[in-house]
């Protein structure tokens, strides 16, 4: 079996398992909606200020909701020793990691695509003005969140305080990616196009994704095998 088929098998397996139980995605979606609701109390949801900080709000919602999905990613394999079986299976750690990352990516994107219109309605924001660019930022930012989150999920699966350690590790290391995604989302929702000034955030986001995907693929084998 070549590498990409292995990756797809793992991703399909994870997605199928998740769609049957729906435990992570339901929790994550409900959590995202609850945070959106809570933010409406913290900020005036109809004011102009909301439009200015909306990019930040959205990514905080995505990051929080994302941890719920990512937390389950490897922890789901713990009962019945599935994780040991997966590691012993004749596929590389990189394929296992990439497959899981892709499955998480799909789930997280689904949650985000549901929360975006809800956000637009609740906060009276016309978020579709720069739709294609916004989708590009969403794809790139979510990949950064997913690849680091899946990596920390693998790191924390067997340790004490797993639920505490995952966000503790993931958020600080995501700071540059979240900053770029927040800034771009803010400007795109306000209707500013990608211009010579904010394009460097896009480049940084791409660079972040590429670097961390590469490093994770190299190092994940040592984490899983020990």
């Amino acid at each position, binding site marked *: 079996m070549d590498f990409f088929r292995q990756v797809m098998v793992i991703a399909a397996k994870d997605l199928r398992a998740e769609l049957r139980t729906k435990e992570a995605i339901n929790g994550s979606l409900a959590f995202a909606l609850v945070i959106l609701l809570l933010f409406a109390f913290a900020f005036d949801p109809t004011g102009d200020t909301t439009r200015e900080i909306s990019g930040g709000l959205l990514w905080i919602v995505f990051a929080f909701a994302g941890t719920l999905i990512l937390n389950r990613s490897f922890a789901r394999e713990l009962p019945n020793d599935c994780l040991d079986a997966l590691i012993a299976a004749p596929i590389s750690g990189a394929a296992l990691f990439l497959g899981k990352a892709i499955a998480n990516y799909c789930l997280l994107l689904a949650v985000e695509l549901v929360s975006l219109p809800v956000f637009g309605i609740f906060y009276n924001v016309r978020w579709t003005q720069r739709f294609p660019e916004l989708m590009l930022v969403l794809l790139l930012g979510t990949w950064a969140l997913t690849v*680091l989150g899946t*990596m920390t999920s693998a*790191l*924390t699966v*067997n*340790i*004490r*305080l797993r639920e505490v*350690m995952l966000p*503790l*590790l993931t958020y*600080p*290391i995501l*700071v*540059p990616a979240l*900053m*770029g995604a927040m*800034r771009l989302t803010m400007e795109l929702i306000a209707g500013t196009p990608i211009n010579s000034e904010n394009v*460097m*955030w896009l480049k*940084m986001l791409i*660079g*972040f994704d590429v*670097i*961390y995907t590469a*490093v994770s693929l190299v*190092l994940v084998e*040592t*984490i899983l095998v*020990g």
Partner: protein
Amino acid sequence: MNEKSGWGDYILYLLGAVVIIILVRDIYVIARLPQEAQQGAIFKIIFFHVPVAITAMIAAAVALVASVLFLITRNFRYDALAVAVTEVGLAFLAANLITGSIWGRIIWGQWWAWDARLTSALVCWILYAAYLMLRRAVEEPTQRATFAAVWSIFSFIDVPIVIFSIKWWRTQHPQPVFWGGGSFPPDWKAVFLWNMLAMVLLAIVMTVVRVRQENAQRELDSLRRTAHAM
């Protein structure tokens, strides 16, 4: 480890004494230096603030090298070095953050400015503090060392990205006084370099002590296992 600890102890004490002498002399010299024209006395905090920051950066680089070496060789000596140097670097970075904050209170009028360097130093501090927490959460020694090494590599990659991205975001930290052609007279530079040397030596002494403690901890663990087996 035990047979050479006699000489090692002497060298360590000697180094520690040298550090203390240099530092005490530097405090005396710095107190007598004239005030800087624009910022007044508070400017002198730079003699502490910058060497501490550079030492912390060196510590992070050493931690990276030790972590990579551990992953290659699986020799626990490198793991001990990595944890020791990370912990010492964190203490130095904390001193750096607090002196910077106090300086900012005078010059900027606020304790914390969210500018590039402050923020990136804070993110860096949090990342390496997470490293220590991760170590505490993992029980099995080999796994602990491996996970910690991987995390150290991840953190080190993140730091330059954080620095550059926050610089784009906004910045108000003064440019480095040595390369920016600032108002730094040559005799001040000499004092500064002495202090720099003292800080690096201090960090080395602390790291060596910490490495020994890590080794002692491992010895303790193995003794416990023996006791348990009997």
